[in-house]
């Protein structure tokens, strides 16, 4: 059971994972649009102001495409097997599933209130806001949930890479970390550009 949660790619890859994965990405973007939750880089989850739906769609797709393209380049260089493009892109798309759950987080106002409360309490910035115990508990629970979803996402992304590229051990870890860092930078810039363009 645990194996299937963290490595479903043993059973699903190729076109099937690509179709399901793209659907997941598009639904995530739409829910993010309605809940004001965006993903301004590869793994960040933040609430945002009202923006057009295309902002969320392009951002979600670019997070997936940038990371998958870089992984595919590494796989071509470092894999002993013949790597299929559809496996890399398909499994990485499917790996975005945890953020489909994360896109619902913005529906709760507790996170926003908690953020404003912390900003005022610690830095005396913004406006003074009182936070009920209920809101506090919900906000902390959502922060923990977000953290767990991020761990799940990264584990899925790594396992997707390992299965689809057949790269193991230290080589897999090194490739993954390098691509991860580069993707964080690139997707961060893309999101900044998109935010400036659409807001």
């Amino acid at each position, binding site marked *: 059971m645990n194996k299937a949660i963290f490595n479903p*790619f*043993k*059973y*699903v*890859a*190729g076109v099937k*994972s690509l179709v399901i994965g793209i659907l997941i990405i598009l639904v995530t973007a739409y829910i993010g649009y309605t809940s004001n939750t965006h993903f301004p880089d590869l793994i960040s989850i933040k609430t945002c102001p009202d923006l057009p739906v295309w902002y969320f769609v392009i951002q979600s797709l670019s997070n997936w495409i940038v990371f998958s393209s870089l992984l595919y380049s590494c796989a071509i260089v470092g894999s*002993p*097997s*013949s790597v*299929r493009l559809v*496996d890399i892109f398909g*499994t990485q798309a499917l790996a975005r599933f945890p953020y489909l759950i994360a896109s619902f987080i913005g529906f709760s106002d507790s996170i926003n209130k908690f953020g404003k409360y912390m900003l005022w309490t610690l830095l005396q910035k913004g406006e003074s806001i009182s936070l009920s115990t209920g809101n506090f508990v919900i906000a902390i629970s959502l922060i923990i949930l977000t953290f767990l979803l991020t761990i799940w996402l990264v584990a899925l992304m790594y396992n997707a890479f390992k*299965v*689809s590229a*057949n790269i193991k051990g230290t080589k897999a870890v090194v490739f993954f970390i390098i691509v991860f860092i580069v993707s964080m930078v690139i997707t961060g810039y893309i999101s900044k550009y998109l935010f400036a363009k659409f807001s």
Partner: protein
Amino acid sequence: MDKKLPVTCPSCEAELKVHSLSCDSCQTTINGSFELPLLIKLEQKEQDFIIAFVKSSGSLKIMAQELKLSYPTVRNMLDDLINKIVELQKINK
């Protein structure tokens, strides 16, 4: 219960050789020192994989469907098996 053919010495883990062969029909026994065939040195699940591979005409897609695994998983299994066979061939040389 199917008996598993041992390929390594349980005492020192060195590779075993065939010492004698016998005919059940006429009780003739041949003694000597014969190398084990390479395929027998593979684990049972690896031998099963090879049989499934041949039966599916070498199609990894068909194998993936039959084993209910993804294509890259089956391809990785095949690549691991190829590496193991190459290593065994190197040792035998």
